[in-house]
């Protein structure tokens, strides 16, 4: 098992023990090196001291040629068992005395070497001058068995080291067993709490704080984290229906809201396949798409109809979040849902109502259209059929006038004239009604229309009415538009005719024709006069059929003109409106959407 995977208790103990042993070994090593060096130095010093003593004791023997005494002196070296061999050379470097005495001469250096002690491979050897009162009498040679001493010393050292190490390990082990708990205990407690939290998804538990050190801080932070998660979970549980499943769809967690809406108990749900609450409402493709999406690690959102335990269906707005393993495969799905059953029901109702409404609108429209057509046909035929008798009335009243003109009095002639005028008026009325009817039915023949030309023509046509009157025409720049020229001509004819008519009582009439461009309405045209004007409270009635604000005596008219204007403008997609004040004049507006207009004519440039 790799070190990082062993339990923290063992880890701490291993660290403590290892540290102790390594420190111990390093110290031992340093000490050992020091001891070794000291040992060599000491050995040299000891040997040289010994050499000096022996040399001092050998002076007389050498000076007075007493080999027995020299041997005796050397024999004292027997007390130091590590002295392997020793010998004395006389002044001439000749072997004088040996130790051990029985050894052959070959065991000793044949020739003198420089004074001093030297480490050879297995021993320390040295030549020590034998001096008396500054005179050199000979040389002492000593050979010291460093090998065995080193050996002894080394083994002694190792034994001590091993013993010390054993003691250290024992003490370190005993200490670490107690001390590591200070660190491992809170961590283990924390780990246990974390495990309990993640296993039971119970965020209300808290880790016990055992001190105010970093681990205490960690515990606090951990508890704080838990509190935050708990708060968020509580908030989520208040709002949402939450369920968690494993990758195969088995339920591992449900919150209270889930139980409440599905009417299953938690025990009945945990471990069950999530299909338990499938309603069968959705198509196989819908379900497959859901599973494909989340299995690929993507979030799925949608509305699902589920089935509760009692068989009732409920709708939930659902977000399923897959949580992925490092390999990208999901290990669990968290589904957060909101109950939208009511909304669904309302939507369903609205849908039904809409459908019903639409049906009704279609019916009504059809009815209205039928009625309208009937009415139009009726109007047309009535108007058309009325013309023949009217012509008869007119014609025969004329014939009658001629017939009785000479025999009748003024009264009779007035009657005949009234009949004739009424017939003519009715004829005009019928003509205009027919026109109005045609405007409603005939197709639009769109073409480029030069407004100014039309207006000039109409003013010319109005000459009979303007003869002898003082009328000031103010005509602004007018764009060319895309419209039905015949119909548009009707519009201008009506508006300008009205302006001329209602300014009749003005000694100086002023009629203004202008255009402006408006973002909402497109091209807006208006005709403004300083005529009779009207009361703004009747502004809505102005454009109705047969709606007249003035009597026929005051201003003659059929009451169809402005209705026709409105109808034509509406058919072009525009609208009409009017502004005015009694005796101060009126302004009539109509708009044509920009799409229907084209660029200004070259004449206005």
């Amino acid at each position: 098992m790799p070190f990082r995977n062993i339990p923290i208790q063992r880890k701490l103990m291993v660290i403590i023990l290892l540290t102790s042993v390594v420190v111990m070994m390093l110290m031992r090593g340093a000490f050992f090196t020091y001891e070794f060096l000291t040992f060599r130095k000491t050995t040299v010093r000891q040997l040289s001291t010994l050499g000096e003593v022996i040399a001092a004791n050998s002076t007389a023997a050498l000076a007075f040629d007493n080999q027995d005494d020299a041997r005796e002196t050397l024999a004292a070296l027997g007390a130091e068992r590590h002295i392997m061999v020793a010998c004395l050379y006389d002044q001439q470097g000749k072997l004088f005395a040996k130790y051990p005495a029985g050894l052959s001469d070959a065991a000793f250096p044949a020739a003198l070497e420089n004074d001093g002690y030297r480490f050879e491979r297995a021993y320390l050897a040295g030549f020590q001058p034998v001096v008396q009162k500054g005179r050199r009498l000979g040389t002492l040679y000593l050979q010291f068995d460093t090998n065995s001493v080193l050996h002894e010393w080394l083994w002694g050292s190792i034994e001590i080291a091993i013993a010390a190490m054993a003691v250290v390990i024992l003490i370190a082990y005993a200490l670490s067993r107690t001390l590591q708990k200070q660190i491992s205990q809170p961590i283990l407690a924390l780990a246990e709490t974390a495990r309990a939290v993640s296993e039971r998804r119970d965020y209300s538990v808290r880790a016990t704080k055992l001190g105010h050190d970093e681990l205490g801080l960690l515990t606090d932070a951990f508890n704080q984290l838990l509190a935050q998660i708990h708060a968020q979970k509580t908030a989520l549980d208040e709002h949402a229906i939450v369920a968690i499943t494993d990758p195969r769809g088995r339920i591992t967690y449900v919150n209270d809201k889930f139980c409440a809406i599905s009417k299953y108990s938690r025990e009945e749900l945990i471990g069950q396949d999530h299909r338990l609450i499938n309603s069968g409402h959705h198509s196989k493709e819908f379900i497959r798409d859901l599973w494909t999406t989340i299995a690929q690690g993507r979030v799925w959102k949608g509305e699902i109809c589920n089935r509760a335990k009692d068989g009732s269906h409920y709708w939930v707005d659902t977000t399923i979040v897959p949580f992925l393993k490092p390999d990208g495969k999901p290990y669990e799905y968290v589904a957060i849902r909101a109950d939208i059953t009511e909304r669904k029901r309302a939507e369903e109702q609205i849908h039904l109502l809409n459908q019903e409404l639409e049906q009704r609108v279609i019916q009504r429209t059809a009815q209205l259209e039928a009625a309208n057509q009937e009415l139009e046909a009726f109007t047309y035929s009535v108007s058309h059929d009325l013309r023949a008798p009217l012509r008869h009335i007119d014609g025969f009243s004329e014939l009658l006038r001629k017939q009785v003109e000479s025999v009748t009095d003024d009264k009779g002639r007035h009657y005949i004239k009234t009949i004739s005028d009424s017939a003519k008026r009715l004829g005009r009325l019928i003509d205009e009604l027919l026109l109005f009817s045609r405007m409603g039915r005939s197709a639009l023949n769109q073409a480029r229309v030069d407004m100014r030309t039309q207006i000039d023509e109409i003013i010319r046509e109005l000459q009979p009415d303007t003869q002898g009157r003082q009328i000031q025409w103010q005509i602004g720049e007018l764009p060319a538009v895309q419209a039905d020229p015949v119909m548009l001509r009707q519009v201008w004819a009506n508006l300008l005719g009205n302006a001329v008519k209602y300014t009749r009582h003005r000694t100086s009439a002023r009629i203004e024709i202008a255009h402006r461009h408006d973002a909402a309405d497109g091209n807006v045209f208006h005709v403004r006069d300083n005529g009779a004007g009207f009361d703004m409270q009747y502004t809505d009635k102005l454009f109705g059929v047969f709606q007249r604000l003035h009597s026929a005596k005051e201003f003659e008219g059929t009451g169809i003109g402005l209705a026709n204007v409105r109808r034509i403008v509406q058919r072009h997609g525009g609208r009409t409106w009017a502004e005015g004040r009694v005796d101060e004049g009126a302004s009539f507006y109509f708009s044509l959407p920009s799409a229907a207009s084209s660029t200004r004519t070259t004449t206005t440039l």
Partner: protein
Amino acid sequence: MAILKAFTRAWTNHGAKSLGAAALVLLFWAGQEAAAQPVVSREYQVKAVFLFNFAQFVDWPSGTFSSAQAPLVIGVLGDDPFDGFLDETIHDEKVNDHPLIVQRYRRVEEIGACHILFISQSESGRLDRILARLKDRNILTVGDAEDFARRGGMIRFVTENNKIRLRINMDAAKAAELTISSRLLRPAKIVTTGKD
């Protein structure tokens, strides 16, 4: 062996000028071995070296030298048995800065400044008188006569197994205010006046 030692020392210490003397010793010694000549000369050669060596193991009271460079005198009283070897041995030698010289005396009254005095066997008859005469002098008395140490001499050469050994009378040395190094005592035998 002692002759060889003397020879080699002469060779090493005095260089070429001693070579002749050393060669002579060698020849002499070699002839002696070959012809079994009386051993007197070889014996005295060793004794001459020993006399010189005593200078290194004995300390004299400070007053015995007139100056730091004053010579250390080795005297021979009576017949000189060294046959010039003593002069040869101490030639150019110094002990504690004191050059060594040899002086020969016929009578004890002649002895002036002297540190080591070899009393020849020729003076055996007068030994007591001589020693009595030297009693207050700081002179190391050396001799090879019978009972020399027992009779009050300080160091006696004794020949044992063809080796020259020392007998030292410490009391006599002490009486003369001489300090004999304990090292010298190691290979020697201590005797007291009146005993042997």
